């Protein structure tokens, strides 16, 4: 993933009011623990692990009571700050939707520059595997009640945990080699 795309992605998320934390896969549980409120439910991740306090096989009642839902995303779209969440059998969709805060884990390797890339990724999956994906960009929002409010039906807050490529910049965690980001921040 290019430095420019990572920088664009983070800048877009920042403008959407979405917080981002970054680190290597080995620190995933720690980063999630910092971002998640309590009580929290989640779905087992493809990459990285969840902290123990996240209930990964929740009952519907536990989902209802949860403050935070933790899921991973299949893809990120740099230009728009969107994350692709798959509606799978494990409950990724309800866990990401029926909560106040959605903590979403994305591997940097899964970041693509723009929408055409995202739909080229989706096309074969939709045709061959009937995949259901929502591209979520920031929190749920409405302006129907006389002002912009977050959390109309879905989450009020979104937090992205971005997992660095192992060894990409030597340490896998420093922003210092990322001049564009440094300039922005």
């Amino acid at each position, binding site marked *: 993933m290019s430095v420019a795309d990572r920088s664009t992605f983070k800048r877009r998320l920042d403008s959407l009011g979405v917080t981002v934390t970054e680190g290597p896969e080995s620190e995933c549980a720690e980063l999630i623990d910092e971002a998640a409120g309590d009580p929290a439910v989640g779905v087992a991740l493809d990459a990285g692990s969840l902290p123990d306090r996240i209930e990964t096989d929740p009952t519907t009642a536990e989902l209802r009571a949860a403050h935070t839902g933790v899921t991973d995303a299949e893809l990120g779209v740099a230009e728009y700050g969107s994350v692709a969440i798959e509606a799978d059998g494990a409950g990724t969709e309800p866990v990401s939707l029926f909560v106040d805060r959605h903590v979403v884990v994305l591997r940097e390797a899964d970041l693509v520059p723009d*929408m055409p890339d995202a739909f080229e990724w989706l096309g074969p999956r939709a045709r061959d595997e009937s995949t259901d994906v929502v591209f979520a960009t920031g929190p749920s929002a*409405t302006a*129907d009640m006389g002002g912009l*409010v977050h959390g109309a*039906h*879905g989450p009020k807050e979104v937090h992205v945990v971005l997992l660095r490529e192992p060894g990409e910049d030597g340490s896998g965690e420093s922003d210092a080699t990322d001049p564009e980001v440094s300039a922005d921040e």
Partner: protein
Amino acid sequence: MSSDATKGDRIRELMATEGDAVAENTRGFNQGRYESTGRLDDYEELKAEARGIKEDAIARLPELIEEVRRTVEANGGTVYVADDAADANRYITELTAEERDADRLVKSKSMTSEEIEVNEALEAEGVEVVETDLGEWVLQVADEAPSHIVAPAIHKSREGIAELFAERFDPDDPPETAEELTMFARERLGELIEDADVGMTGANFVAADSGTMLLVTSEGNARKTVTATDTHVAVAGVEKLVPTVEDFSPFVELIGRSGTGQDVTSYISTLTPPVGSPVPDFEHDDGPLADGSGDDRDFHLVLIDNGRMEMREDEQLKETLYCIRCSACSNACGNFQSVGGHAFGGETYSGGIATGWEAGIEGLDVAAEFNDLCTGCSRCVPACPVGIDIPWINTVVRDRINRGEADPGQTDWMFEELVPDEEPGGLDLSTRIVGNYETLAKWGSRTAPIANRLSDAGPVRALAERVAGIDRRRDLPEFAGEPLVDWFEARGGSRVSADEAEREAVLYADTATNYVDVDRGKAAVRALEALDVHVRVPDLPGSGRPPLSQGMIATAESAAEDVYAGLATHVDAGRDVVVIEPSDLAMFRSEYEKFLPEASHERLAAASYDVMEYVFGLLENGADPSDLRAPAEGTGPVAAGKRVAYHPHCQARTIGVGEHATAVMEALGYDVRVSDTECCGMAGSFGYKHDYYELSMDVGEPIREQFGDTDRTVVAAGTSCTEQIDALLGDTPMHPVELVAPRE
């Protein structure tokens, strides 16, 4: 005229009750569109790509319907193609009431379901229907219809919603702020969704290759509706089909930007149902969320024809099927900004494109209701992400109404001489009078003193208002005794000889310039001659704009042929055609495409220039700006001052010649402030009409706000703008060419 009086009253009432909320929201969305699309490097390419996909999809529609039937069924869903609303409702009510034994259906906002009125059909069968979009739910609680395609409750104020909730639900702690109202609705709707049996959504697009549907929302209600219920019914017009999933891409980038100015909406759901999520059991919620219960999900795609396949065969209405329901045409429309959707369209759709939808789906009589709220200003054309010429569709429908609903009882013979048009007898009188403006102007000019005195006389104005609906508050144009063409001939033609000239130009003496505002014509001659242009001012027919605005297409077409015949020799001789009236230049460049052979249209369009565009071009090519009039120093008379307030004409902006005047004035040293409203609200005949007078003035309000207290010299190019600004500010603005032309 009694039904017209009701129309006027209704518009006045809507302006009073809903106008402020509508204005604030639509103007905000419209501004957001400019900002958001302005951030795209490839906006025009994206639009072209989106249009190309729609053209292809509509052309191949029967094939795509068969393909999506195969792909959805392969996934275990069903596809039902409903002929009309009754057919669709029968299928859906049978499905919900019998097969699924449903008590409650939760629904994510969908215009197509509004079109078939499925809520009423379901409720008649004892199924409770709950709208889950917050705005739509407010309307359901208030028992009102949507007033906007995208933001249905745009006309409701926060205070109004608070009052409604307090009254309807009598809560202990009545919500008041936007945040409190939203959370109140979220909670109530959340409970209703949890206990629902069936979820219904629309679909913004459906990909035939996989059966994938695209849903664009911001609230998350569509997601909850689909996830929380084990039966999903998607209702979509057949025109929503596109060939492949990859085809979604340009629309995703355009739809939010075009509608509300969001780069993308919060959620873009791409569902290939039945979806893979488990169905949460909220009734017995101590069981695991993901227990494989998603396996019994059921999906039905109801594709609705309801007139669409016929529209596809209709060369003029076909373009309506390219519409992606983004609402850009509503938000860009001056009239919509003042009155909102409750004054537009007929049964379901609103805004500019509504006429096409209503004509195709409901019929001409429904489309006729408010078709004339389209003034043809054309600002929706560049706003439309799929490039639909919406004013043209309105003109076509107007023409069909003229032909189809003619009242043979009218005493048409009285006016045959006055109105020598190409239209069938029995056309509405006010339509014919406005449509034959050129003949009126010729007659008025010949008898100028009498005509002007007569047209000012109280009894005549009262009669004109009663018989022809021309509002007596509006000043009528004062005809000049000596038309421009006669003046030019009397002065002995051009002062710059053809041999010494840099260029040769034909100044098009449009009807208004020739018979009413002769001064701007004289100024144009002086300005061009000052820049070494040999000018000709031949006697040419009117462009056909007035009849076109009245839907008199045959008359307009005949005018186009006459104009081309009159100009062809000049174009052959390599002369440029310089046009003062922007609405006429817009005819030459845009509408004539429909009337002239392709080569003729292209030649005329390429040879024609707006007068300020032409001056700009001359200066760019080395003409000396000091030959034009620079601003006067010091405080001097206002008209000669340095500070200028300029209102660009709506149609000039659409064809891309609105800003040349600004550039020329600035090059000469003027300090120019440009108005930032879409349209002045006058639009030719529109502002003269009694029923629309107040609306026209309301649309012009932003100009009054911006320029009302200005000490700047006000300039505007269009005849209509000039009349409107005169009415708004009490002073007639000059044409930009009058500002920069050397004095006589």
